[in-house]
């Protein structure tokens, strides 16, 4: 059983662009060069027009909570140490079918650990922040937006 958080492989040519942008604190998704369909997670071919050509489009990094989970024991040691934490699935403002998973931070620059389920709700507005976990990994995380910008 591993002791540290598991990390993504970041040098796969299909999604390297995502992780490289994440290191620059930018959320990008693939955009098909043929039909301009936005897609996430990255894939080598467009499911709509079958083009293999794609580029990366910068997103606003804003979205609304589609749903979330609050994992509790038993977990891997690194996740046990993070409890309580909340991981959200967020629909991006650019298109509700583009959903990005990330842990919630209590405040900008804050910790993953210490967030409780009653601190957020489905439909709440969030914005992205990237947390550096390794030289090649910046993990997408979500921060609650100040009240006023409510979702559904």
């Amino acid at each position, binding site marked *: 059983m591993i002791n540290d958080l598991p990390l993504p492989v970041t040098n796969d040519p299909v999604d390297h662009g995502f992780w490289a942008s994440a290191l620059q604190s930018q959320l990008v998704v693939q955009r098909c060069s043929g039909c301009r369909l936005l897609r996430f997670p990255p894939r080598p071919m467009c499911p709509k027009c079958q083009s293999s050509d794609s580029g990366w489009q910068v997103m606003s990094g804003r979205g609304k909570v589609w749903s979330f989970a*609050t994992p509790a024991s038993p977990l891997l040691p690194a996740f046990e140490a993070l409890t309580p934490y909340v991981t959200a699935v967020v629909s991006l403002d650019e298109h509700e079918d583009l959903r*990005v998973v990330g842990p919630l931070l209590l405040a900008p620059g804050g910790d993953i650990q210490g967030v409780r389920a009653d601190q957020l709700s489905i439909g709440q507005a969030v914005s992205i922040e990237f947390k550096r976990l390794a030289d090649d990994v910046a993990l997408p995380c979500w921060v609650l937006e100040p009240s006023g910008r409510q979702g559904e």
Partner: protein
Amino acid sequence: MLKDQTAIVGIGETRFAKRLEDTEWALACQAIKAALDDAGIDPSEVDAMGCFNQETTPEFDIARSLGFGDVHFFNQVAHGGGAACGVLGQVAMAVACGVANVGVVWRSRKRGDPSKRQWAGVQPRIADHWKWSRPHGLLRPVDEVAVTMRRYMHEFNVTREQLATVALSQRAYANNNPKAIMADKTLSLDDYLSGRMISDPLCLYDNCLESDGAIALVLVRSTDVDRHQQPVYLHAFSQGMSPQHQLMTDYHGHNPLQSSSWTTAANLWRQSDIQPSDIKLAQIYDAFSPMILYCLEAYGFCGRGEAADFIADGGMSQQGRLPVNTSGGSLSEVYLHGMNLLTEAVRQLRGEAANQVAAADSCLVATCDSTPNGAVVLRR
């Protein structure tokens, strides 16, 4: 068409427990031998074999242990909880079209040991699609299903008290099934509501057991059924994978609450003379209790968002409209990736079940909603 061309003529099981001493190899052999004995078929006659791709014992070790002769077909199906009906259906197709004559399918598994849980084996770097959710905190299957269930509860105003019906109904069935691991442990609504959360809104009792055991079934062409056997016919079969599906984290399609079961159901009922309104009972894969709600809707037993009311009104109990998981299922009988759902369906259609449903003449068996999956309609 495959319709009614093959029949299940043997079922076999080992004992079920939190821990068994025998190896998965030995348990597989015991279950298969029991199923062949039930069918009255000599091992040397078996020439088709089907199993999960997560099986640790290769087919040749099974075949040379049991004394199979010349084997003509073997297949493995992927995706864990979604695989059981695919394994059965693929062997049925091979037997129906004459590639082979006698098929066995099985699942042998020891997972009572916590270190054997799949999430416990997560590697330091993740290369597959789980790289988009596991580092972010959705570590285990229960976390992945908690996400969809929270959304489902939000969209359809479902309460934990309603969801509890799944665990309570299945425990009641298990309390009357001597083979069930939870045969002697009752469960009340208070127990459920005070149970510890594993991944809110899912508590301990929404999770399947972790257990050891093996199960096997034997299948032949319907024209080869002999007078000593009690055939249960495979009436319809489909596998299914929905557009934009992603295993367990099916969050990226247009409607994540409409997963592979919707695809499987449409193609299953297309082939079936027996429709949802005719079906007397169902066995539905239940690694986590929400899957019952999802499948009741996907397979057409109730409308969108109506499954919680359906079960809360007693719909899945023995006297209800559609008794579900009548052996106790994965939550309360045994967790063997859903193979016990197939054997329970056969027992019901033979009239031999511990919780026998009156006039059971057809049964749906459906596998994991959140993976590429499969389903069968079985009939007497």
